[in-house]
């Protein structure tokens, strides 16, 4: 719903006003020198005041000034630092535009920018100079600028109405509302005097156009407008202050104004009129578009008009709303009630009397339907008839099938009637003719119904009413029958048309809702940001039939394309700049927006809270506006939902990252404490033994050094393995492995560490090959053998036993010793679990078994520990998925 606040009388600060004043903090201040007409001396005034500020020690530069060769003005620019203009080549000419980036880079305290209403050369960052100024203000730079009253958006129509000169270059009122305004005022006579003395610069073209512009009466009117506008600005600012402070009282107007936008030419004038009403009443206002079934058949021009009017309304500070309804009157009526509006501004087309007789006047209906609401009726351009019609609903003329079907029915009834005539009463026959009329009207619409009614009455008249065989009626009673037939056709078709329209509307709205719900349901289950991005693009493409790209900044700096609906999309530098702008500033950019409109794409920010999480770009493959006005609400909903989804995924990733970091920290701490033990112990032995060598070399000392160094080496490779596991950097190089081969290699490599433990291999030679990573398997086996050697009783045998049972290959390493403490069978694979009581006696971090488990699981195997009668058994299981089918024997011989 649109904003229908503020709450009058409450002593509570108005959040919007507070926001506005907060937004002002840190922004530059804008001062506008407002004149009634060219030649009043705005530029001169601006420069003088700039010079005064500079004398006060303020850092002032001139961004752009048009002196038009006037010497007094030119003299004033001297002494100012002037930013040189940017040359923009355009259609063979070179235009000199203000260099926005140079000013931003120079970052003065105050910049003087002449001609606020100027339109920039095509291809500039912003189409309008006031948008450049906005950017300067946003950068914290104060701006002085000038404007003539006829360039103020909301006064454009009024000025045009009495001067008959319409200027294209207008500045939204919202810009003026945030500015301090100084009226540069000279009496009309003096201005005319200056004009005669040639002190006012006018181009040749303008001289011709302005021939009667500078009449005394015109200038007086313009001057009055300028003064009133300035006073209004002061009022508005005061109002803002009061609201921000929550003083309440009678300040906040109790009027709420709604303007109903239509698709006719002149909709923009309607918006400007509403703005004046709203300003006069100091009330919040809303531009309302009632989306009736008819809107589906608007032409592109009509769609564009509605969109333009809505955009203008936003620029002028209105809230906008689109409501679906079966009729304009109904939509407006409901909205007025919901919004508790007190004033309605509505346009009335200059339609023919005939049109109004047939359709009734919307205004009349409204006056009856909305008591208590003041209605302002503005004439809007265009006579209803000349407006090119949109594509009509085919149902209006009905389908050929309808005419054939009803015609056939009538023929059948007529034939039946003739055959049975003597037996039939004429009145009953007339009733029978109702049947095709009802069928035609209800199934095929008004025209078909009327056709049926007319045909029926003609047939009835011709074949049955005396005198039979003519179309004349002898009995006046029978005239009634004909009228009744036609009347029923009319009433039925109206009723069914209404019902159908409502049903269509409900269907459309249900479709939109279902679409949204479907989109949400699908995307709610997605946990991968890339998948979500692609889904967003595909869905928007499917629903709106536009090209879609989604851009984001996962790395934090560069803006990258996250996904696109069509792989062949193209973004040129302008498009990228527009996307970047939308991302950085959280505003729509590109085609159809106010910024970088030369881009072929329309970029809309996806906002979550106060941050922009991504930018969605849409483009029409055929060129032209990407999104129709009636699609905008759906797109907005999709964008809002997408933003929430992306934010959710971002938070999820962040949470997961935090979790990983936490786990890693915990591991790192544990690792440090145990590493210091396990590294230092063998090192101590090596260093000590090496020192002893000075006093004589004994085989025992050399053996100690070798054994301890080997232990260190084993420990370091385990650390490396663990680091790989922790970093998630296990890369599998899977190949078919012969387990007897693997076991032999492992036993061979482990034989030194297992001094004193004979190894027995009990691996049947016919075990199938398995598909695993040979290195990882080797490390698993080495660790299991090492573990068996460490916990088995000295001198006992270590057995590796292979088996193939129930489609699963198993490899068990068995030791003979005390076995595992009861209940610790699963725990032993946890990192740094060292079995109780055994830790002092036997070295080892407990990394080994954790590595076995991590590697085994990475390869799709499982590992388990259990106690046997006389020791522990560690079993690696290779599920059937890893087993390689035996190769054909002919390959092997």
């Amino acid at each position: 719903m649109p904003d229908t606040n503020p709450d009058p009388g409450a002593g509570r600060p108005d959040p919007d006003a507070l926001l506005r004043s907060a937004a002002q903090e840190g922004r530059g201040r804008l001062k506008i020198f407002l004149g009634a007409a060219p030649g009043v001396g705005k530029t001169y005034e601006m420069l003088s005041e700039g010079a005064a500020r500079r004398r006060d020690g303020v850092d002032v530069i001139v961004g752009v000034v048009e002196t038009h060769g006037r010497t007094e003005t030119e003299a004033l620019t001297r002494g100012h630092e002037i930013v040189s203009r940017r040359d923009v080549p355009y259609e063979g000419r070179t235009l000199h535009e203000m260099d926005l980036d140079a000013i931003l880079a120079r970052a003065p305290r105050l910049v003087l920018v002449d001609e606020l209403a100027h339109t920039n050369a095509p291809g500039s960052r912003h189409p309008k100079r006031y948008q450049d100024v906005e950017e300067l203000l946003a950068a914290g730079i104060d701006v002085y600028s000038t404007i003539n009253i006829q360039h103020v958006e909301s006064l454009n129509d009024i000025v045009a109405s009495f001067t008959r000169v319409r200027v294209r270059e207008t500045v939204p009122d919202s810009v003026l509302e945030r500015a301090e305004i100084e009226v540069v005022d000279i009496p009309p006579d003096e201005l005319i005097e200056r004009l005669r003395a040639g002190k006012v610069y006018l181009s040749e073209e303008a001289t011709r156009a302005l021939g009667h512009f500078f009449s005394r009466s015109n200038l007086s009117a313009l001057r009055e407008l300028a003064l009133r506008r300035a006073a209004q600005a002061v009022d508005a600012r005061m109002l803002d202050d009061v609201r921000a402070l929550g003083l309440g009282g009678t300040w906040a107007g109790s009027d709420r104004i709604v303007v109903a936008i239509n698709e006719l030419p002149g909709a923009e004038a309607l918006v400007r009129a509403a703005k004046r009403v709203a300003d006069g009443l100091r009330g919040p206002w809303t531009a309302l578009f009632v989306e009736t079934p008819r809107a589906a058949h608007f032409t592109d021009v009509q769609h564009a008009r509605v969109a333009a009017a809505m955009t203008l309304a936003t620029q002028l500070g209105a809230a906008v709303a689109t409501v679906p309804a079966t009729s304009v009157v109904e939509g407006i009526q409901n909205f007025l009630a919901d919004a508790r509006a007190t004033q309605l501004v509505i346009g009335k087309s200059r339609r023919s009397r005939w049109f109004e007789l047939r359709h009734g006047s919307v205004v009349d209906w409204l006056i009856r339907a909305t008591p208590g609401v003041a209605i302002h009726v503005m004439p809007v351009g265009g006579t209803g008839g000349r407006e090119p019609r949109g594509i009509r609903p085919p149902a209006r003329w009905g389908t050929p099938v309808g005419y054939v079907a009803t015609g056939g029915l009538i023929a059948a009834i007529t034939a039946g009637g003739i055959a049975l005539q003597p037996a039939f009463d004429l009145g009953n026959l007339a009733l029978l003719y109702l049947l095709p009329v009802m069928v035609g009207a209800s199934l095929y619409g008004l025209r078909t119904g009327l056709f049926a009614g007319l045909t029926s009455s003609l047939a009835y008249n011709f074949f049955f009413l005396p005198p039979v065989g003519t179309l004349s009626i002898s009995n006046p009673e029978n005239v009634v029958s004909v009228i009744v037939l036609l009347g029923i056709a009319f009433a039925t078709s109206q009723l069914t048309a209404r019902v159908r329209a409502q049903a269509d509307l409900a269907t459309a709205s249900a479709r939109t809702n279902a679409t949204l719900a479907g989109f949400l349901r699908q995307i709610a289950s997605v946990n991968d940001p890339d998948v979500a991005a692609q889904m967003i693009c595909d869905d928007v493409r499917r629903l709106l039939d536009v090209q879609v790209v989604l851009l984001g900044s996962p790395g934090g700096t560069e803006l990258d394309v996250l996904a696109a609906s069509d792989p062949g999309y193209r973004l040129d530098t302008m498009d990228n700049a527009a996307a970047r702008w939308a991302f950085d500033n959280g505003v729509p950019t590109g085609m159809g927006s106010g910024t970088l409109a030369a881009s072929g794409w329309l970029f809309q920010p996806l906002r979550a809270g106060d941050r922009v999480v991504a930018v969605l770009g849409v483009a029409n493959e055929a060129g032209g506006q990407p999104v129709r006005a009636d699609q905008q609400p759906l797109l907005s909903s999709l964008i809002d939902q997408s933003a929430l989804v992306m934010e959710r995924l971002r938070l999820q990733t962040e949470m997961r990252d935090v979790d990983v970091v936490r786990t890693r920290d915990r591991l790192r701490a544990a690792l440090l404490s145990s590493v210091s033990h396990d590294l230092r112990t063998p090192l101590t032995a090596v260093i000590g033994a090496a020192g002893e060598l000075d006093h004589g070399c004994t085989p025992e000392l050399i053996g100690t050094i070798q054994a301890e160094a080997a232990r260190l080496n084993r420990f370091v490779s385990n650390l490396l393995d663990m680091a790989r596991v922790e970093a998630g950097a296990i890369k599998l190089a899977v190949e078919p492995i012969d387990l007897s081969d693997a076991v032999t290699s492992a036993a061979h490599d482990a034989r030194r560490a297992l001094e004193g433990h004979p190894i027995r291999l009990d691996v049947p030679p016919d075990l199938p090959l398995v598909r695993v990573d040979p290195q990882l398997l080797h490390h698993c086996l080495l660790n299991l053998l090492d573990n068996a050697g460490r916990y088995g009783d000295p001198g006992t045998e270590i057995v590796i036993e292979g088996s193939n049972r129930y489609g699963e290959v198993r490899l068990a390493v068995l030791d003979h010793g005390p076995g595992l403490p009861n209940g610790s069978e699963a725990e032993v694979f946890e990192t740094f679990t060292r079995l109780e009581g055994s830790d002092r006696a036997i070295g080892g971090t407990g990394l080994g078994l954790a590595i076995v488990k991590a590697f085994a699981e990475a390869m799709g195997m499982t590992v388990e520990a259990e106690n046997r009668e006389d020791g522990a058994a560690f079993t690696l299981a290779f599920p059937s998925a890893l087993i390689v089918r035996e190769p054909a024997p002919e390959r092997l011989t």
Partner: protein
Amino acid sequence: MPAKILVVDDDAAIRRLLRNTLVRASYTVVEAADAKGALRQAAAEQPSAILLDLGLPDRDGLSIIPLLRSHSDAAILVVSAREAVDDKVAALDLGAEDFVTKPFDTDELLARLRVALRLHQMLGAPPRIVRRGDLTIDLDLRTVSRNEQEVHLTRKEHDVLEVLARHIGRIVTHEKLLSACWGGEEEPRVEYLRIVIRNLRQKLEAPALVGTVIANELGVGYRLRTES
């Protein structure tokens, strides 16, 4: 005249260790600390073998193997802490004779060096009869006997054993074995090789651990062990 060995390693302690070991085994030793020095020394000194570390400060050791090959006829033995199978295969493919992983056993290193030198000198004139322990492999007659008893081998088993025997003491990569023995067939697969090797072992080896004849270099290939 003792063979001249070039030791390339950026770590002075490793160079010292290798020099001591090699001098003890009566080799002449020259040293280089980086890739540039290695290339210069290889060209100037024309060593018989080069012990090459891969982690050199100025260039990756792998990348200079072809350069060393073109500068000298030396047998190249990679001595590196890198364990990755890819690095090993790459080193062999680029023309290294063998590799030894750090930390190494000095006796093992010397044994590998001997094999590499011998093989290198033998190039072009492969032995016709390979003897190893109780095994005798006659490459000309295509016969294998164990304890003077002829062992019956299938054609593939013989093919594989022959390739290994021609390179005795040296790693033969899976690809090499597969293309040599299954070259004509479409898509030769490692599992054929595994089974053939398993069968060979059953026929040629005693069911003991130590002294296995065919050594498995994990993920890289196979080697027919010399007696040590």
